[in-house]
């Protein structure tokens, strides 16, 4: 079924009888050409592009719970392509371009809103670093603009520029950055993939891989064995758990990242603001909630919940630059499991096991990457060659010393 303004009106006038399920609820078949493990944003996007872009047939997405229940449904909805390093920037810019046409492409309004992202600058050294970054963005075809404190004040008059512990000395803006209704991304891809014949199988947990003489033949699941020509894993925070079933150890730790939303408020924040001297970033959803976050809790965790010190740390950062938010109320806090890699950058690569492919290590940058991650993983699965924008995301880069370390924190995942 195609969604349209006309359809909405027609249904409104006829009691909404005509709406059908956004995706089917099929039973798994015995064998698929390609099985994607993980019904999150990346897995569903992969299936969507495999079917639509690469005309692959007989595809299934296996989700242990309900689709969109992982990080795609528990992030702070920001999209941007303001990266520094050659290994990253072209990929994230590719992703941003895909976002820009996504809704028309999969016929679902994900409320992609390019209201801009602003990184505040507080020191000369930071300015130097941001100038280098902004230049890298422009040289890679992305947009970037250096804003003066005055320009920033004009847009955010209530920003604390007078009495700040760390004075605001300008900011790096990417106007094409913004936010997206996160759940809608999962639903849109799911509906789109389903429309192209992909089987989305929920409540189907993968319990093991069937591997014979170096080749992966399929997966054991809570709904029985499912054979596959190729198996692609896209399970983010659960990557290590899943790949250990194939006796793989990953360059990765799983960490909890908390996120927060305030009660609904009339519009105050036009775009996304990130505070460079503290751990705080914030945007405002269409519903009116201030959506904000900060640092990882810092310890390995699969608990999908965090602790008080980080909540305080984040709100301290918020009050340092937005003292006007003091009387807004924090409504809800939650946690996601981040697949923190050893250099802060992802992996989209084949494994040493024939027919087994891996996509993970997104740290907390996974949401903005969803379209490109799906596209590039689909490309790898369909062609067995890395997509041109994702050639650096290899497993062996650590062994070879080719890390892609945006933050320069080295092999300590919780610092990326």
């Amino acid at each position, binding site marked *: 079924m195609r969604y349209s303004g006309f359809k909405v009106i027609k249904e409104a006038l006829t009691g909404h009888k005509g709406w059908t399920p956004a995706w089917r609820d099929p039973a798994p078949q015995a064998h698929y050409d390609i099985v994607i493990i993980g019904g999150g944003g990346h897995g569903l996007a992969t299936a969507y592009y495999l079917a639509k872009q690469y005309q692959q047939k007989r595809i299934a997405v296996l989700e242990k719970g309900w689709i969109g229940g992982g990080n795609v449904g528990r992030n702070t909805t920001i999209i941007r392509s303001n990266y520094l390093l050659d290994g990253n920037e072209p990929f994230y810019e590719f992703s941003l371009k895909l976002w820009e046409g996504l809704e028309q492409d999969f016929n679902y309004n994900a409320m992609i809103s390019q209201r801009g992202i602003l990184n505040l600058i507080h020191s000369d050294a930071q300015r130097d670093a941001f100038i280098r970054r902004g230049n890298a963005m422009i040289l890679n075809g992305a947009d970037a603009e250096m804003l003066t404190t005055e320009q920033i004040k004009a847009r955010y008059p209530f920003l604390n520029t007078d009495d700040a512990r760390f004075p605001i000395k300008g900011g790096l803006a990417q106007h094409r950055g913004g936010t997206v209704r996160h759940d809608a991304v999962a639903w849109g891809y799911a509906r789109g993939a389903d429309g192209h014949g992909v089987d989305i199988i929920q409540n189907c947990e993968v319990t093991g891989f069937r591997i014979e003489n170096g080749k992966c033949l399929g997966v054991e699941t809570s709904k029985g064995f499912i054979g596959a020509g190729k198996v692609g894993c896209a399970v983010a925070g659960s990557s*290590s758990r899943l790949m250990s079933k194939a006796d793989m150890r*990953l360059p990765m730790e*799983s960490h909890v990242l908390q996120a927060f939303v305030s009660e609904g408020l009339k519009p105050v924040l036009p775009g996304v603001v990130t505070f460079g001297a503290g751990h705080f970033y914030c945007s405002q959803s269409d519903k009116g909630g201030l959506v904000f976050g900060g640092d990882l809790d810092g*310890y390995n965790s699969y608990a999908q919940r965090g602790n008080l010190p980080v909540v305080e740390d984040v709100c301290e950062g918020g009050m340092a630059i937005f003292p006007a938010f003091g009387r807004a109320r924090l409504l809800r806090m939650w946690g996601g499991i981040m697949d923190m890699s050893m250099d802060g950058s992802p992996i989209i690569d084949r494994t040493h096991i024939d027919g087994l492919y891996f996509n993970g290590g997104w740290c907390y940058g996974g949401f903005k990457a969803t379209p490109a991650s799906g596209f590039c993983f689909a490309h790898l699965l369909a062609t067995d060659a890395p997509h041109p924008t994702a050639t650096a995301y290899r497993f062996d880069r650590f062994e070879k010393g080719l890390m892609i370390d945006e933050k320069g924190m080295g092999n300590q995942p*919780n610092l990326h």
Partner: protein
Amino acid sequence: MIIDHPLLGPRDSAEFTYMGDARLIDRPDPDAGTAAQDFYEYGYLRDNPAGWHDELWFHEAGDRSWLVITRNTLTHEISKVQLARDVARSRGRSK
């Protein structure tokens, strides 16, 4: 979280800095023929278990001890806390 420091008793984990897998104590022999591979695995590969995990915490705002803490990554329950120095010695580290 509360970390039951072997010397100081229960302390708020906010006083500590986390480093990760306690296998970082087992620094490979740099003179072994396999040193390159050993150090790559030591530096980059992790079990990252969903369950019990031995991990290193530094009592930054306390007595500056490195601790090895056995903690469940699913529930955050802590079952054991030891001084890393004792653990290191017990694993044969010396000078």
